[in-house]
């Protein structure tokens, strides 16, 4: 029996992206630079997160023309973002042939209570999380891949680190918990019991987990890899830096050789200016994208 768009092939594509870097791009030219640098996928966008942050207003799904023009020029997977809860944007992206949909807090949420029922789609979804409960809620809704939220568009890795450490420590807590406590743990973290039981038994998420939100240097990428993520999203960090080509290549290399400090030292040299960063404490609560998602 042939099964198209099964959970296996949805989670399977994320497995194939592991150890790789997924780069935000806004034009076909940037997409080619990303592919040339060794990106394992690109995220097609109208504006990168730091511009969304700077310009304000409502951020929506990109114009299909942008997404199609990027799909035309690269052979690697092309992802695209839909607003939280905006299942019609997701339907449109699926119809366009996007390879993965990011139901993303970087865009302005379209629903302030519910996320998309991702089981309804053949195209796989990736969603952001700050802790294990949030990750398992998204997986329960059908996400086939998880990423940390971090704080997008800041060039500051501290929030991604916090979210990854929180997920890992939540997982560790479950693995030593007696079985009779798991139901209460599920209730407290607001996550489906079956997924909580899975994590308790296996000591890991049932899907691939990438780092996102604030990664700006090869060292940032290697840091997240050493903390245990499966791969890296870089948003504004590449094309808002002084030398995107060199930086893109360096982040790819650092993600593969994340444990080799000597090599990381070579890779990190002479990359020009990184994107200028934002200290998180200077952001008003209303400007923090990570609070979006329920």
């Amino acid at each position: 029996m042939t099964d198209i768009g099964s959970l296996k092939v949805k989670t399977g594509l994320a497995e194939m992206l592991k150890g790789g870097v997924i780069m935000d791009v806004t034009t076909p030219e940037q997409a080619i630079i990303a592919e040339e640098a060794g990106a394992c996928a690109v995220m097609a966008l109208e504006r990168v997160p730091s511009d969304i942050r700077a310009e304000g207003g409502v951020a929506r799904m990109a114009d299909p023309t942008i997404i199609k023009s990027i799909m035309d020029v690269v052979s690697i997977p092309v992802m695209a973002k839909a607003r939280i809860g905006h299942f019609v944007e997701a339907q449109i992206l699926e119809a366009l042939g996007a390879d993965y949909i990011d139901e993303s807090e970087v865009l302005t949420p379209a629903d302030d209570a519910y996320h998309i029922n991702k089981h309804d789609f053949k195209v796989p979804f990736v969603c952001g999380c700050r802790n294990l409960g949030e990750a398992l809620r998204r997986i329960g809704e059908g996400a086939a891949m998880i990423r940390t939220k971090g704080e997008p568009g800041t060039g500051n890795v501290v929030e991604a680190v916090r979210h990854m450490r929180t997920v890992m420590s939540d997982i560790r807590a479950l693995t030593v918990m007696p079985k009779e406590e798991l139901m209460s743990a599920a209730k407290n973290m607001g996550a489906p019991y079956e997924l909580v039981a899975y994590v308790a038994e296996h000591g890991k998420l049932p899907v691939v987990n990438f780092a996102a939100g604030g990664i700006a240097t090869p060292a940032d990428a290697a840091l997240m890899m050493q903390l245990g993520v499966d791969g890296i999203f870089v948003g504004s960090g590449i094309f808002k830096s002084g030398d995107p080509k060199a930086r893109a290549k360096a982040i790819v290399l650092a993600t593969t050789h994340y444990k080799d400090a000597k090599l990381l030292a070579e890779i990190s040299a002479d990359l020009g200016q990184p994107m200028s960063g934002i200290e998180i404490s200077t952001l008003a609560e209303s400007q923090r994208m990570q609070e979006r998602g329920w």
Partner: protein
Amino acid sequence: MKKRVGVLALQGAFREHRQVLEQLGCDVVEIRKVSDLEGIHGLIIPGGESTTIGKLLNIDGMGEEIKELAAKDLPIFGTCAGMILLSKTIIDSDQYRLNLMDTIVERNAFGRQVASFETDLMVSAMGPNPLRAVFIRAPFIREVAPNVGILAEYDGKIVFARQGNLLASAFHPELTPDQRVHQYFLDMIDEYWAH
């Protein structure tokens, strides 16, 4: 002999291959730099993005080193991206490749991710029960030279082939619990090292 099998770990699904090989009793070495290749009895090139893996292979001479091992007939198994990298010809692409198998490969040949699928595949070399084969943005082999043996076809397209000690599948045997494909490759390694 305890087999020491390398899994190219530059990018992609190398962890899953590692797990299957360990379940089958092998020592597994993750290959990230040239010196890791030393002393392996066979090599798996996993699924992932073939352009990404190709670029990383071409940086420090790892690709050339693997070609030298292949010239000595070391058993090498490529899945999906690995199959693309083993092929001499890749349609519409000048990307880096190892240039080892006399095959013509087409990338993303079944379509984009929304067309990815799993199916039951008959492989006579694996016995009478079908394999559950997972195809993800998969390639297929459009043409083979006479020296390449076809192990399986799906919908009239070649998805599993062998040329001497080189083995290539368009699908992902590391994503399903069925270990017959890996066992087949380990038998190739045994045969090679028996001589």
